[in-house]
C-alpha cells in the first residue's frame, strides 16, 4: 500500500515537473523576475554610487550630489561621495566647479577637468579639498570605484574619496 | 553545556582582548606602512596551509586519558572539566578564529573587539549546534576534506592579498 502510494506520488511529481517546464517561459520566469525586481534590493552603492541627495543647477547643466558611500567592513575601496554632471553637451570644454558636498552652504572641494572631443577617451581632472571632509586627488581618472572621473553616456561621473571619520 | 559554552565565551573574550592589545601596540608610524598587514596576511595564509595539511600531527597513546578533563567522573569533576574544556576550545587557533583576531586587532576600541568576538561566538554556536547534534563534522571524511580544501583556497587568497600589499609598498611606497 505504502509502495503504491509512493509510486503514485512520484509519478504525480514527475508530471507536475513537466507542467512546470511548460510554465517556465510562459509565466514562471517572468513571475520570479518580478518578485526579485520588487523585493527592494538595490545594487551595492560601491558600484551604483549611492542614492541621489540633491540637484544643483549650474550654467546650463546640473550637478547631482549623492549620499556618501562607506565600504562594508572588509570591502575594498575607500569611502567616497559621487557627483554627476549632466548633460555632457551643456558642459564647457573645461569645467571648474566648487562643490558643497555636505549641504552646509560652504564649498568643500574644487574640481577641474577637461572634456575631450573623443567620447571614448578617458577623462583626467583634479580634485582639491578645501577642508578635511574630502581628499585631494591631483590626477583623477577612471582608476577605481572610489576614486573616479568617467563618462557614462550623457553624464560625467565624479567620485571623490572622503576622509574617514 | 551551559558551563562549557560560558567558559568558551570567556576564552573568546580573552583572545579578543589580546588581539586588540596587539593591534593597539602597533606604532602609529607603522600605520603609514602597510607591510605589517601584509605580513599578518602571509602568516595567516601559512597557518591555514598548515592546518589544511594536517600539521601538527599528534596521536594519542594507548593510555591517552586526560588528567585535566574527566567528563565521566563525579559531578564536581564534570563541572570543572566542562569549564576547562570550554575555555581551551575558546582559544583554539583555527583559521577563522585567527582571521577574526586580525579583524579585532584593527578595531579602534576594545569594546568593539569584545562585541565583535561575542557575535563571532554566537555565530559559531549557531553554526556548530546542528553539527554537534548530528556528529557530521567528525564522522564525514568528505566534510573534513572539503574544509581542508577550503582552508587551502582561502590561504591562497590571504597570501595573494599579502603579496599585493607588499608589491604596492615596494613600487609606490
Amino acid at each position, binding site marked *: 500500500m505504502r509502495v503504491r502510494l509512493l509510486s503514485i506520488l512520484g*509519478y504525480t511529481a514527475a508530471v507536475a515537473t513537466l507542467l512546470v517546464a511548460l510554465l517556465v517561459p510562459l509565466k514562471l520566469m517572468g513571475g520570479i523576475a518580478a518578485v526579485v525586481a520588487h523585493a527592494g534590493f538595490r545594487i551595492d552603492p560601491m558600484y551604483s554610487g549611492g542614492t541621489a541627495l540633491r540637484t544643483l543647477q549650474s550654467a546650463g547643466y546640473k550637478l547631482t550630489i549623492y549620499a556618501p558611500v562607506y565600504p562594508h567592513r572588509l570591502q575594498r575601496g575607500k569611502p567616497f561621495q559621487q557627483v554627476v554632471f549632466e548633460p555632457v553637451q551643456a558642459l564647457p570644454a573645461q569645467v571648474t566647479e566648487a562643490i558643497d558636498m555636505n549641504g552646509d552652504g560652504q564649498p568643500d572641494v574644487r574640481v577641474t577637468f577637461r572634456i575631450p572631443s573623443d567620447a571614448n577617451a578617458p577623462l583626467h581632472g583634479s580634485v582639491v579639498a578645501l577642508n578635511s571632509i574630502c581628499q585631494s586627488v591631483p590626477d583623477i581618472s577612471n582608476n577605481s570605484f572610489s576614486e573616479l572621473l568617467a563618462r557614462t553616456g550623457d553624464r560625467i561621473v565624479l567620485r571623490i574619496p572622503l576622509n574617514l571619520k | 553545556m551551559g558551563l562549557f559554552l560560558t567558559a568558551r565565551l570567556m576564552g573568546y573574550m580573552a583572545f579578543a582582548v589580546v588581539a586588540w592589545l596587539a593591534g593597539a601596540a602597533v606604532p602609529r608610524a607603522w600605520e603609514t606602512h602597510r607591510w605589517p598587514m601584509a605580513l599578518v596576511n602571509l602568516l595567516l595564509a601559512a597557518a591555514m596551509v598548515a592546518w589544511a595539511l594536517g600539521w601538527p600531527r599528534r596521536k594519542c597513546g594507548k593510555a591517552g586519558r586526560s588528567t585535566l578533563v574527566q567528563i565521566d567522573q563525579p559531578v564536581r569533576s564534570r563541572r570543572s572539566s566542562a569549564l576547562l574544556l570550554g575555555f581551551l576550545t575558546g582559544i583554539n587557533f583555527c583559521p577563522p578564529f585567527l582571521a577574526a583576531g586580525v579583524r579585532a586587532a584593527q578595531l579602534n576600541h576594545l569594546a568593539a573587539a569584545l562585541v565583535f568576538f561575542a557575535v563571532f561566538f554566537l555565530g559559531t554556536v549557531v553554526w556548530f549546534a546542528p553539527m554537534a547534534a548530528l556528529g557530521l563534522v567528525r564522522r564525514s571524511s568528505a566534510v573534513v576534506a572539503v574544509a581542508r580544501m577550503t582552508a*587551502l*583556497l582561502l590561504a591562497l587568497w590571504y597570501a595573494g592579498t599579502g603579496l599585493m600589499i607588499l608589491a604596492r609598498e615596494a613600487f609606490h611606497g
Partner: protein
Amino acid sequence: MANAKTTSQPVARSMGRSLLMTLPMALWTLLMFTPGLMKPGLNQHIAAVLTGAFMVWLFYRMLRTGQTYRWRRIFFVALGFLFPVGFVAALLTLRGSMSIPIEHMISGDTPFCYMVIPMLIIPAALTHTLAFPGSILPTPSNPHSIAAMIGLWLGMTLVLGKAWCAYGCFFGGLEEGFASITRRARIRKLDERLRLVPWAVLLAIVLLSAAIFEPVYCMWLCPFKTVTEFPAVHDAETAIQFGVFVLLFTGLVVVLPFLTKKRTQCGFFCPFGAFQSVFNKINIFDIRIDRTRCVDCGLCVVKCPTMAINPESVNKGETLMSCMKCGACVDSCQKDAAVWHIKGTEVGRNPERARLLFLYAAWAMATMFGGSVIANGLSTLLHLIFRG
C-alpha cells in the same frame, strides 16, 4: 522493443511511433522559435528554422534509438561553442571590446551571469544589496538583468535540478567538446577527492564574497571570462586576473578534458555545479542502479564525465548528489542496470517511462534556453559569413 545496446544500429521504437512522440516537442519548438521568426533579418529566420529543426531532430533520435547521452552531447557542444560567438559579437557591437571598462560597471551595464547567484545570497540577506555591477531590471544596453536571469535560472532549476549542468549551462559544452576528441583517455587514474573540490571552491567564494562584497569567482576564478568578457586590463592586478582566467581556461576547459575525457571544470572545479547539486535533492528524477542486474563491471564509473558515480554508490544502487543526468552511465551499461528513475517508484520497473518524462521536461528547457542561444550564435555566424 529491441535491446538498444545489442544491435549495431540501436532502435528503441519504430519510426512512426518516434515521430508521433516527437510531435509535442516539435510544437513546443515552434512556439519557442516563433518570436525569432518575427525578428527582422533573413539570418535570424534561417538560424531559427535550422536550430528548431536541429533540436527536434535530436529529440527524435533520442526517442528512436533509446539513447540519451550522444544526442544530448551534440546539442550541448553546439551550445558551448556558439554561445561565445553570439555573446562576443554583441559585446563588440556595443562597446567594441570584450573587456568591461569601469564606466560600464558603474552604469549597471555588466550582463548578469547565473554563476554569481551563490555569491550574492549572504550579502543580500545581510544588507539588501546585490554585490554585482549590473542592473536589477533590463535596460536597452543590458537586457541580461539580475531579475531576469534569476527568474530564468530558478524556473529551469525547479525542473532540471543538477541536470542544469547537462541541459542548460552554456559553458559546459566547451569542455564536453574537447573531452570528446579522442577515443581513449590519456590520463585514466584520477583521485576520488577531486569531485569534492567544487564544494571547497563554493564555500571559499561564498565566504570571501560575503566578507568583501565582491563576486570573487567572477573577479578571480572564472575560466570562461576568456571567451566572454573580463575587467579591462589597466594595471598589474587586472593583468594577473586575466592571466588566471586564461590559465584556468586552458587547463580546465581545453587540456585536461582532452587528456582525461572528463568534464574537469564542471566536475572538479565549478562552484555553481556544487550549488546546483543541492537541488538534486528535491528533483523527482534520478538515475539508479538495479542491483539485481548489475555485475559490478565498473563501466558506468569510467564513463561518467564528472565522477558522479563510484563503486560505493553503485553498491548502494545510486549515483552521487552531483549526478547531472547526462545519461552516459545508462547508455553505456551493457546489462541495463543503470536506469532512469522517478523517486518513490520501483527501480527498474519502467525506466523508459521515467526517461521519457524527464526528457520531455529537460528538452523543453533545453529548447527554450539553449536553443535560443544556439540560434543567436548561428545567426551571428551567418551574418559574418555572408556580410563579412
